[in-house]
């Protein structure tokens, strides 16, 4: 399969959008484009499985490698493994749902959909890149559109939030760039030059001193995207001001760019430093998990609740990466997929509630189950997923991480696991608090009686995500089989590093 198709389809859609007139044309083209992409990602999954089943054991499949800028050894090198296939599937789900949720965006609709799909290009490119520079290029592609989406279509103190988000993510990118450049100048290929190629770097042994310097840059840089404590503060403000589809994208995909980067670049390429610094990562992520959960408990705005809970849940991703066992890494990837779907759905449901009630304050909501049963049911399902209910995706990921982290024998890791486990209680408190207040209880206002329940596009959007969440929750083995072997590869790199050291 030609992987560049994954970039080509959105680019064609974007070009077509430029020639559209009116909301109707714009949204039909966007829907069509993202639906094609959605199908394409399943085709990719199918081919990927087929290749694996036929015994292809290469680390990455469907590789393509073209010289992009020879003097700096920048290549357009792409390829996928199970982890990236999972992330691509996630992206196509979220983008499609995002388009459907934004069906009624009337102000500057062309620009809105253009930017939204543009974000998608960045994400797809990021997940298939095997060249550090290309990867960085796609990472950057996805920052500026967010600024515009929040600044123009946002709500509340949107200028502040947009600026904060853009600056912090730019700062993160700056760190990432230093890390990547540091790696680049310390590589030595056979012909005596430097390389950005991930696969080649993985084969080399970067000196420990170099790793020690540049690992923190790369990890913190990507960590900013992935809401690493204490660089998570863009999350609540950014999410709460963003329009629904942008929130979905931000939390669903953008934060996963960070986690994926931490895994694929920082940990994979600098395994010794990852090993050395793992205790810091674990401490920071445990703080994020528990402290994020406690901070969530005190929030009153629905979007802030989900944003803070995202900090807590993304802490699990970083914890899984920091623990450095095969099971924990597989768990981290599952948590990325699970949280991506779940939080996108959560923001979609919150957006629908906000559209109808014009408030996101818990105190002003109540009894919504009576007036909008469909949306409320979706809200409850996603809330239960967030709470880690078995049968939905969150449980699978968290349990895998817990099991993985307990594998490490040190008492330190055990304490970290217990701290992370403790969050399940706090999560239950804040989730049931919001469900009890907003969805259940007596009807808060008589005006709510006029509310109409979800339209077809909203049902379709949420339905897609609910199906995905349930599919992972009920049958996690397919996802586990998809990403397991590649978690293995990353771990091998780490244990090789340990042997050399």
């Amino acid at each position, binding site marked *: 399969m030609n992987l560049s198709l994954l970039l080509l389809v959105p680019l064609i859609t974007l070009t077509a959008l430029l020639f559209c007139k009116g909301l109707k044309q714009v949204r039909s083209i966007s829907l069509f484009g993202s639906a094609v992409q959605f199908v394409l990602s399943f085709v990719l999954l199918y081919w990927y499985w087929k290749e694996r089943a036929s015994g292809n054991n290469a680390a990455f499949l469907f590789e393509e490698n073209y010289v992009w800028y020879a003097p700096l050894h920048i290549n357009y090198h792409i390829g996928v493994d199970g982890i990236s296939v999972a992330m691509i599937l996630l992206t196509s789900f979220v983008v499609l749902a995002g388009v459907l949720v934004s069906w009624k965006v009337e102000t500057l609709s062309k620009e809105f959909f253009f930017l939204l799909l543009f974000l998608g290009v960045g994400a797809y490119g990021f997940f298939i890149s095997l060249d550090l520079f290309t990867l960085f290029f796609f990472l950057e592609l996805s920052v500026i559109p967010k600024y515009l989406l929040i600044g123009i279509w946002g709500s509340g103190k949107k200028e502040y939030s947009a600026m*904060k988000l853009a*600056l*912090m993510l730019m700062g993160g990118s700056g760190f990432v760039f230093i890390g990547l450049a540091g790696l680049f100048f310390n590589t030595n290929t056979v012909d005596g030059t430097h390389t950005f190629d991930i696969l080649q770097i993985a084969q080399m042994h970067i000196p420990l001193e170099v790793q020690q310097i540049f690992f923190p840059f790369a990890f913190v840089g990507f960590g900013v995207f992935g809401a690493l*404590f*204490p*660089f*998570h*503060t863009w999350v609540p403000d950014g999410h709460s001001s963003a329009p629904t589809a942008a929130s979905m994208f931000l939390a669903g995909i953008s934060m996963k760019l960070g986690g994926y980067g931490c895994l694929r670049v920082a940990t994979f390429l600098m395994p010794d430093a990852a090993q050395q610094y793992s205790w810091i990562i674990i401490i920071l992520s445990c703080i994020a998990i528990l*402290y994020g959960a*406690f*901070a969530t*408990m*005190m*929030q009153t705005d629905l979007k802030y609740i989900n944003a*803070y809970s995202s900090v807590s849940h993304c802490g699990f991703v970083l914890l899984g990466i920091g623990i450095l*066992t*095969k*099971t924990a890494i*597989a768990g981290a990837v599952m948590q990325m997929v699970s949280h991506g779907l779940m939080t996108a759905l959560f923001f979609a449901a919150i957006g629908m509630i906000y559209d109808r009630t014009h408030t996101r304050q818990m105190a002003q909501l109540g*009894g919504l*189950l*009576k007036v909008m049963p469909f949306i409320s049911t979706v809200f409850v399902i996603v809330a*239960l997923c967030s709470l*880690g*209910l*078995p*049968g939905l995706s969150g*449980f*699978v990921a968290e*349990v*895998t991480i*817990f*099991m*993985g982290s*307990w*594998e490490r024998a040190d008492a330190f890791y055990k304490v970290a*696991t*217990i701290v992370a*486990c*403790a969050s*399940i*209680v706090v999560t*239950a*408190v804040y989730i*049931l*608090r919001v469900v*009890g207040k907003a*969805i*259940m*209880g*007596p*009807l808060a206002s008589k005006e709510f009686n006029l509310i109409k329940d979800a339209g077809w596009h909203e049902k379709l959007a949420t339905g897609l995500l609910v199906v995905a969440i349930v599919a992972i929750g009920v049958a*996690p*083995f397919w996802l*586990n089989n998809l990403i*397991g072997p590649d*978690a*293995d590869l990353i771990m091998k790199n780490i244990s090789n590093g340990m042997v050399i050291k």
Partner: protein
Amino acid sequence: MNYADYIAWIPLLPLAGFVLLGLFGKRFFKQYSGIIGVFILLVSAALAFYTAYIYFFINGYEDGVYQKLIPIKYVWLQFYSGTSIDMGILLDPISVMMMVIVTFVSLMVHIFSLGYMKGEERFSTYYAFLSLFTFSMLGLVVASNIFQIYFFWELVGISSYLLIGFYYDRPSAVSAAKKAFIVTRFADLGFLIGIIILAFEGGTLDFNTLIHRLTDLQSPEYIAITTASFLGISVMTWALTLVFMGGAGKSAMFPLHIWLPDAMEGPTPVSALIHAATMVVAGVFLVARLFPVFSINGASLLIVTWVGSVSALFAAIIACTQTDIKRVLAYSTVSQIGYMIFALGVARYGGEAGAGYTASMFHLFTHAFFKSLLFLGAGAVIHIVHSNEMKDMGGLRKLIPVTHITFLIACLAIAGVPPFAGFFSKEEVLLAAYNSNKAVYGIALFTSGLTAFYMFRLYFSIFWRKEQEHETHGHKLSLSMKLPLIILAAGTLLVGFIPFGKFVSSDGRTLESPFHFEFSIAPVLFALAGISLATWIYKKESGRSQKLAAALGGFYRAAYKKFYMDEVYMFVTKKIIFNLVGKPAAWIDKYIVDGTMNGIAFSTAKVSGWIKGIQSGKVQNYALYFFVGIIVLSIVILYLWK
């Protein structure tokens, strides 16, 4: 038929019911949802009874032992340490027994609800939730893997949450549902950590392998888990205690019992199913499932014993003072589960020493009958009176004679009067306690007197005390409500005669438990004393109850206030967790972490504000800087050259 051919349908049919009714019930089936639910359960229950027949009488018993069969098992989630979460069905005496109880009581409740919930707006949703619960509970009892238990453990928790909060527009129902879930979730945290420890030390999550490894005193796993210690207590004890914490939370044992009385906010048939007969005994089941491991760890068994006996006594005292009939029954449930728990605690593995295990399971079995009967009876009463309070009742015996007779049978059973079911099982529990721990026996004996007292206080307050003053209003119990009462009452009369030791014992061998006539004198006397006292005080309206309350003074008030346990919890959650942890976390995030970020941005802006003045764009300024620069440089150069 092989087990593998059909056994999965026992849990899967209710799941199908949930999906069907949940997705389409409201639109397509409406009032037929109930019939569909009943029909599905009927098939499921028939299959469960069939399985029990085959297992106990045809092929379960081989070589003098009841076999542990696993007809179905799938790997659900593989971990790389070699362990995996499997979804499977484990058949052994207790899982088959539980399957029968769950499907049978669930069927009764399904039928009863046809009448009780008639006209309810969310009728289909109600049946969907009932099906979800039944599925989860069946998945729990047949679990072959300890994580499978946890999986369904959480699912029964959420079903309970959804059903307690069924009347979602009542704030009290919402907060009761929330409380139930959060308290049990807290307990489940212990359970989860316990599972992870056991899984790691045992190297497996599979029950049979785990039990085998951890009870084999020579196995490396056993040696590792018992020699390793944390804070001076062996890891084995930690793991089992933590697992038991999960069980105690679900079974509403002291001090985690506080959610159960509030859970009575749910529809009464739900209380009968979930909060009396099935879900709340999950903790007992869990300990029983891991009993071989518990039995070789004295410390954790001691904890089990004392938590059970304290709960039995404590809840019985509170039950004597409550005025809401469902709450009386709720505390009574806590007390009776306490019996089951301490019966396990005083038992040991194998032979006569394992009598407590059999007794516990027997009591669980009989309790399911009479307690669900009591709750359904209470439901019928509430259906007529439209109130839960004793003061609104009285003299109902002629109005609802079927309920009256069946309720009386259940009261006699729970009080332990022969020949009703509760008598036999309680007698075995007491005997086991007597042979092992006299203090526990004393508590249990006294509690059985209290049990008889509060049950008959309840009975007389509902059916006697006043003359009938309620009009019939055309409120007649429909057949769908009477039928389950009659069936359960018949069960209560009969199941006590089952020779339980033949089927269920700690080691799977048959256990002869001869009836000790001389031993049953004391418990029966205590029961009769309790009944007589209740008759004297409550049969007719008199000032005696107030006098008694006044005589007991502060103790009565403390018991009436449930020994202030709710207030303690309120204090801890609201004052400590919210104010001392949650608020500071939110504050720190806003002002310190984010403040630093904003501070950096602010100071950058400030500094650039100062610097930007220099780049004014005016040529004369630049010329000035230029000359000043030249002068400064020349001075520096001249100075350095000197």
